[in-house]
């Protein structure tokens, strides 16, 4: 069964916000730079709390930063 994925626009949003560095974002949301790198590469799915904190830094809703990409076999819609 294919796995659903959560993608994000964090890298794009950082550049749109005065080219915010990964370290700066990490400091503001309370995580390590490694975590931000893995998030941007789509290798790490954050907790809801971290997702909300990241969205808040950019002044956006969680939906505007993260996108849930469901596969057809498991999509309840």
């Amino acid at each position, binding site marked *: 069964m294919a796995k659903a994925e959560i993608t994000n626009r964090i890298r794009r949003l950082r550049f749109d916000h005065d080219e915010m560095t990964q370290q700066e974002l990490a400091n503001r949301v309370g995580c390590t730079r*490694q975590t931000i790198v893995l998030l941007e590469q789509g290798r790490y799915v954050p907790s809801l709390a971290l997702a909300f904190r990241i969205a808040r830094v950019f002044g956006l809703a969680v939906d505007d930063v993260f996108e849930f990409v469901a596969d057809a076999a498991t999509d309840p819609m």
Partner: protein
Amino acid sequence: MLSVSVLAAVIGLAVVATVFLLRSLPSRAEVSPEERAELAGTPMAPLQKRAWWSLLIGAVTLGVITAILMNKGAAAYWEDDNLRMTVVLIFIAGLAAYVSVLLVPLLVGKREGGLDERDQAILSRAPNVQSGIMLVAAAAWLTALPKMFHEEGAVPVVYLYLMFGSIVIATIIGQALGILLGYWMESRHGQS
């Protein structure tokens, strides 16, 4: 014969578990060279740095004590008060270094938010490796001692102390290895 069977069974189980773990990895997408380079250029997480120090402390403590005991003999540890005091002091120094380098910062970090959620997830999986290494260390002792003292039919009391000390050090090394393995697996295969 029984003791060898026990060690073989423990090592066999460890190998089977490792094979299953490694076979599960290719199903995850590999990290591209560019992504790996970006991650390699990122500073180590504080927990990762402390795990390296902890591994070094455990390895040095174990190495020094083993070298002393191999040189002087385990019986000398029991008979020579100075030697015993030296070994005990090295052991305590190793433990104190571990407590100050990894254990206290971990407890403080958990309380004050010094560890992020990913660090905490890696830390919570470290006991899987730690318990495996402790089990192998215990099995090695329980295999070696009956073979060494089969003729006498009794194991000298001194070995109980050495066994305890070595298992404590194996715990430190195992925890550090578990943490480092967690970071390594995430850097190669992403979230596990």
